[in-house]
C-alpha cells in the first residue's frame, strides 16, 4: 500500500496543473498517466490565454477565465523560479478579427452583452476599426473590416508549461507514473484506492480525475454521468520567422520560437486524432491569409489534429460528488488558459476539501436541470 495525500488521474495540462497546485499546498501527490501514444489533448493546445470569447450567457465562466488570466503572471514566475523553464507567457491583449460588416456588428453585440453580464466585475474591451487594428499587427489583410480587443488576453507555450508542471511536481516530491492507465477505482469517502500494475495499491484521501476524454470510463465509479464528447481541432505550424507578430489573434499567433500557428477548426470526429483533412486545413489557411496575406509565402512544416474535450455546453465541468467527499472530476478544453486558475485557485480548494465560488457553479448538475 502506497499512501499519498492525493491521487491525480491524468498528466495533461489539467491534471498536472492541479497536481502542481496540490504540491504547493504541501501535499504528496501521485500523478498517473497513459503512455506516449494516447489522445493527449494537451499536445494539440493552441496556446491562447483568452477570456474575450468565453462565457457569453454564463458570467461565472467568464469570471473564472479572467481569474485564470489574472493569476497567470504569478504562475509563470513561480514555475520559472522552481524549474528555470520560461513558459513564454505574454499578455499584450488579444485581437479577434471580423471579415465582414455582419461579423463585426455581431461581434460588437456580443461584446456589449458580455459587458452587461459582467456587471460590477467589469469587462474592458474595444471595438477597433480596420485602421486601428492594422496599427497593432504587421500587414493586416484588406478583408479585415475591424476587430474586438481586450487587454486580458495573451498566449503562452503549452508544451513548456506542461514540462514545467511536471518538473515542479517531481521537484516537490510528487510522483509521476506514465504508462499506468487507470482502469478501476475503488472509492470511499475520503479514501480512494487504485490498483497499480505491479500488484500494489495507491491510496489517498483525495482523488482528482483529470484525464480528459480518459475520464469517460471512470466517471461511473464516482456516480457521475458523462457530459463530454470529443471534438477534433487541427493546427498548422509554419517555419520559424523573425519576430513580427507580438499581438496574438484568435486563429493566428507567433510562438516564442518564431513559428506561426494557424488554428481554430472544429470537427465532430470521434476519438480520432490521426485523421487530418486537407479541406479543413485549407479553410483555416484561407481565413488566416485573409487576415495576414503575407502568411501565404510561409512554409507549413508541420500540422496535426488533436481531440478536444468538449463538455456539452462548452463550459468546464468541475464535479465534486456529494456521496464521495474528497473526490473530484474535472473536464474542460482550454487547458492552458485555465491552467493558472487550476493551479492556484482550484487546487487549494481540492486540498481544503470543497469547491467554492465560480467553479462551484460549474458542476455537471447543471445538465440535470435542463
Amino acid at each position, binding site marked *: 500500500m502506497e499512501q499519498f495525500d492525493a491521487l491525480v488521474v491524468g498528466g495533461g495540462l489539467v491534471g498536472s496543473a492541479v497536481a502542481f497546485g496540490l504540491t504547493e499546498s504541501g501535499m504528496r501527490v501521485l500523478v498517473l498517466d497513459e503512455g506516449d501514444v494516447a489522445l493527449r489533448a494537451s499536445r494539440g493546445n493552441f496556446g491562447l490565454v483568452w477570456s474575450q470569447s468565453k462565457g457569453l450567457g454564463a458570467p461565472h465562466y467568464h469570471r473564472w477565465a479572467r481569474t485564470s488570466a489574472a493569476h497567470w503572471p504569478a504562475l509563470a514566475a513561480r514555475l520559472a523560479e522552481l524549474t528555470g523553464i520560461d513558459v513564454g507567457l505574454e499578455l499584450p491583449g488579444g485581437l479577434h478579427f471580423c471579415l465582414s460588416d455582419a461579423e463585426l456588428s455581431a461581434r460588437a453585440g456580443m461584446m456589449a452583452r458580455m459587458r452587461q453580464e459582467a456587471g460590477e466585475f467589469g469587462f474592458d474591451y474595444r471595438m477597433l476599426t480596420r485602421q486601428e487594428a492594422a496599427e497593432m499587427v*504587421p500587414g493586416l489583410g484588406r478583408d479585415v473590416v475591424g476587430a474586438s480587443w481586450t487587454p486580458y488576453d495573451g498566449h503562452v507555450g503549452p508544451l513548456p508549461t506542461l514540462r514545467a508542471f511536471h518538473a515542479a511536481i517531481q521537484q516537490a516530491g510528487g510522483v509521476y507514473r506514465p504508462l499506468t492507465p487507470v482502469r478501476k477505482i475503488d472509492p470511499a469517502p475520503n479514501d480512494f484506492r487504485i490498483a497499480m500494475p505491479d500488484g500494489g495499491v495507491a491510496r489517498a484521501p483525495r482523488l482528482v480525475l483529470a484525464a480528459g476524454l480518459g475520464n469517460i470510463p471512470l466517471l461511473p465509479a464516482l456516480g457521475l454521468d458523462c457530459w463530454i464528447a470529443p471534438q477534433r481541432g487541427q493546427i498548422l505550424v509554419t517555419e520559424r520567422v*523573425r519576430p513580427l507578430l507580438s499581438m496574438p489573434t484568435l486563429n493566428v499567433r507567433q510562438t516564442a520560437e518564431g513559428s506561426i500557428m494557424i488554428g481554430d477548426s472544429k470537427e465532430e470526429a470521434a476519438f480520432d486524432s490521426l485523421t487530418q483533412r486537407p479541406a479543413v486545413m485549407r479553410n483555416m489557411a484561407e481565413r488566416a491569409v485573409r487576415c495576414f496575406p503575407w502568411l501565404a509565402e510561409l512554409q507549413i512544416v508541420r500540422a496535426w489534429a488533436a481531440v478536444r474535450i468538449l463538455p456539452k455546453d462548452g463550459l468546464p465541468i468541475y464535479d465534486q460528488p456529494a456521496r464521495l467527499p474528497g473526490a473530484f472530476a474535472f473536464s474542460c478544453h482550454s487547458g492552458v488558459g485555465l491552467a493558472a486558475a487550476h493551479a492556484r485557485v482550484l487546487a487549494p480548494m481540492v486540498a481544503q476539501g470543497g469547491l467554492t465560488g465560480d467553479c462551484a457553479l460549474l458542476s455537471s448538475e447543471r445538465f440535470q436541470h435542463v
Partner: protein
Amino acid sequence: MYDLRTDVRPATVDLLIDGRPVAVPIGATVAAAVLSLGLPYIRRTPVSGAPRLPYCMMGVCFDCLATIDGVPNQQACMVAAEPGMRVSTQQGARSVSGADGHDG
C-alpha cells in the same frame, strides 16, 4: 570544399551565391554549387546560429536550406542550379518580405 572535374563534367551553368559567381555542370544542385565555392556555411541555424553545410544531399536532413531567387528555406540539394539563379546563405530565421521583423 569540393573540386569540380570540368574535364569530365564541363561547368556550364553560371549562378550567383551571395553575389559571387560560380559555374557548375548541368544537373548539379544549388547545394553542389555552394560546396564547390568552399563557403564556410550555407546557413546559420535559427536555434543557436550554428553554421551548417549540406549533410545528406537527398532531401532528408533539411540542413541545406538557402534562399533561392528570393524564396527562403529551400532545400538546396533538391533544386537544380539554373543560369542566373541568385542564391543567398541564411542567417537564422527568415523574415517576411516587406516586413523587417519589427513589430511596434
